[in-house]
């Protein structure tokens, strides 16, 4: 069951206004996540409470950090079903989880945050986890580009 787009749009906007590009079709996912080098973040958005109270605010905080992945993407679980399934195929060793976040470097998953690591935790704690991962895996890529509009 998908939710009415009017209800979901603010949840999409909360992520994209941090410079994260939303992928809504299989084709868009394949273009974004297909073979390539560099660091890529994929945030699996969700309507659930731990996305609203934890994951999305944490992501916004973490993306203010100077070191960030080179490419920032999001898909919306439960809404854009095909795009989400395709995105998950790029980190298929990890069970489907929403919200969740995958950080890939040169196509390999180097950091993954599951829903069970998000539940009930304050955004600042979650953001610290992401920033540590950005520093560990993205620093050698140089300072991230400014967000795309």
């Amino acid at each position, binding site marked *: 069951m998908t939710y009415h787009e009017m209800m979901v749009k603010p949840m999409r906007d909360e992520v994209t206004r941090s410079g994260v590009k939303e992928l809504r079709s299989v084709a868009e996912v394949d273009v974004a996540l297909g073979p390539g080098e560099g660091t890529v973040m994929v945030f699996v958005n969700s309507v*659930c409470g731990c996305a609203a109270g934890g994951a999305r605010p944490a992501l916004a905080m973490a993306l203010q950090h100077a070191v960030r992945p080179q490419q920032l993407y999001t898909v919306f679980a439960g809404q854009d079903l095909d795009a989400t399934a395709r995105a998950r195929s790029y980190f298929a060793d990890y069970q489907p989880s929403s919200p969740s976040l995958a950080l890939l470097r040169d196509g390999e998953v180097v950091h993954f945050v599951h829903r069970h690591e998000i*539940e009930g935790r304050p955004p600042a704690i979650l953001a610290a986890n992401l920033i540590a991962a950005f520093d560990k895996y993205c620093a050698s890529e140089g300072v991230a580009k400014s967000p795309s509009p």
Partner: protein
Amino acid sequence: MTGHVFHPGHQELHGVTVVVRGSSGRSWVGRYHERTERGILLHDVAIHDPATAPVDRDTWLARLRKFGVKVDAKHAVIPDGESAQVELLQPPPA
């Protein structure tokens, strides 16, 4: 977080992924829904039975923490007599 109700109007663990360790030795990992007189209701449940599992419980739990919960049953009710211990799958950082 002590006192934090994840979803208002529900029990404190509602919506949180927990490990239920049974007195029989079986373990369940899933999203806690509620505890009723029938027992604990979990959603999207992974089940470990030491009699049949290829790995021990700690190894199984470590895999779940790293790779996520592989769902064996959409729902499960663990009777009160069986649910010896309930804890978070991912304890909060110290």
